[in-house]
């Protein structure tokens, strides 16, 4: 197996994880794809060390998270207005891809529930979604999140609780 084949297998193995992490943090599939591409280019630069490493998945998640946070800090404010205009269209295609994915393994009812929950996470405002995703998906503590985002511990807790409260209403509607 050549190096190119090994790298292709590596991307195939981790692409869903990297994309999911980016999509949940950024809330938009197109931006997530760009970030995922950058992550894999960085992985390619140090593939010799990374290929056999048992911490490859962790490294990829960390790089993805950092790139997403940088991306949010740099570009989101500038493009927010325009992005919101086609938000419905974007979320539709993203939800469709997700539905196709979950439908293979679960009942349609459960798949729909998962799509709606995923959508609800994505619909949260940045300041609630980002700490909530870091807490629940990336298993970071409140303290780590506060340090990473450069905000106070109290603000992190408040924002996450507000995000959870919004998700709770979605979950309540679904039951």
């Amino acid at each position, binding site marked *: 197996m050549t190096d*190119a084949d090994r*790298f*292709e297998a590596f*991307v*195939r193995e981790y*692409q*869903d*994880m*990297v*994309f*999911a992490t980016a*999509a949940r943090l950024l809330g938009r*599939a197109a931006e997530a*794809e760009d970030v*995922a*591409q950058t992550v*894999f*280019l960085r992985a*390619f*630069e140090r593939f010799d060390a990374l290929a056999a490493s048992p911490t490859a998945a962790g490294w990829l998640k960390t790089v993805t998270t950092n790139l997403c946070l940088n991306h949010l800090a740099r570009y989101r404010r500038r493009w927010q207005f325009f992005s919101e205009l086609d938000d419905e269209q974007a979320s539709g295609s*993203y939800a469709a*891809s*997700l539905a*196709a*994915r*979950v439908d293979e*393994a679960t009942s349609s009812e459960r798949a729909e529930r*998962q799509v709606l*929950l*995923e959508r609800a*996470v994505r619909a949260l405002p940045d300041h609630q979604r980002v700490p909530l995703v870091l807490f*629940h*998906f990336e298993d970071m503590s409140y303290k780590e999140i506060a340090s990473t985002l450069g905000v106070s511990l109290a603000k992190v807790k408040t924002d996450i*609780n507000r995000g*959870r*409260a919004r*998700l*709770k209403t979605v*979950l309540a509607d679904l039951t």
Partner: protein
Amino acid sequence: MNAIDLQELVDRELKRLPYPAAPRTLLPKVLAATRAAAPRPARGWAAWSWTWRMAVVAGLCAIGAGAWLLAPMLQPWVAAALAAAGPVAERTGAIAQRADQTAAVTRVLWQAVLQPLATYLAALALALTLALALVWTLVERLALGGTSQP
């Protein structure tokens, strides 16, 4: 529902979510980008490993030393071979004489006929080359959109 129950509920529900599938375009994009970013493999002496370099140097040294040691032993053989080649040397002399005559005729022809035209021909060739280079540059910039990618 208190805050801890809510945290547990949300955590449980979110952790059940599957990874959304990466778009099908991601893998081809990544592979194309890595192909473009990959350094071309180095070739030649600089690309050889130190082991191979040392082996080649050692081999050349061994050949040189062998030739140095074997030269006195080969000297009688070389002398015998030269003596045996006497008739061949005579023929070689005749061939050299003819080559000398041919060269003299060629020199006269060059000075009389070709040399006066050579300057004009060289100037014409240079002008054509420059014009071709100029046209190619313009075509590449205007029609092909710049330097082509490897």
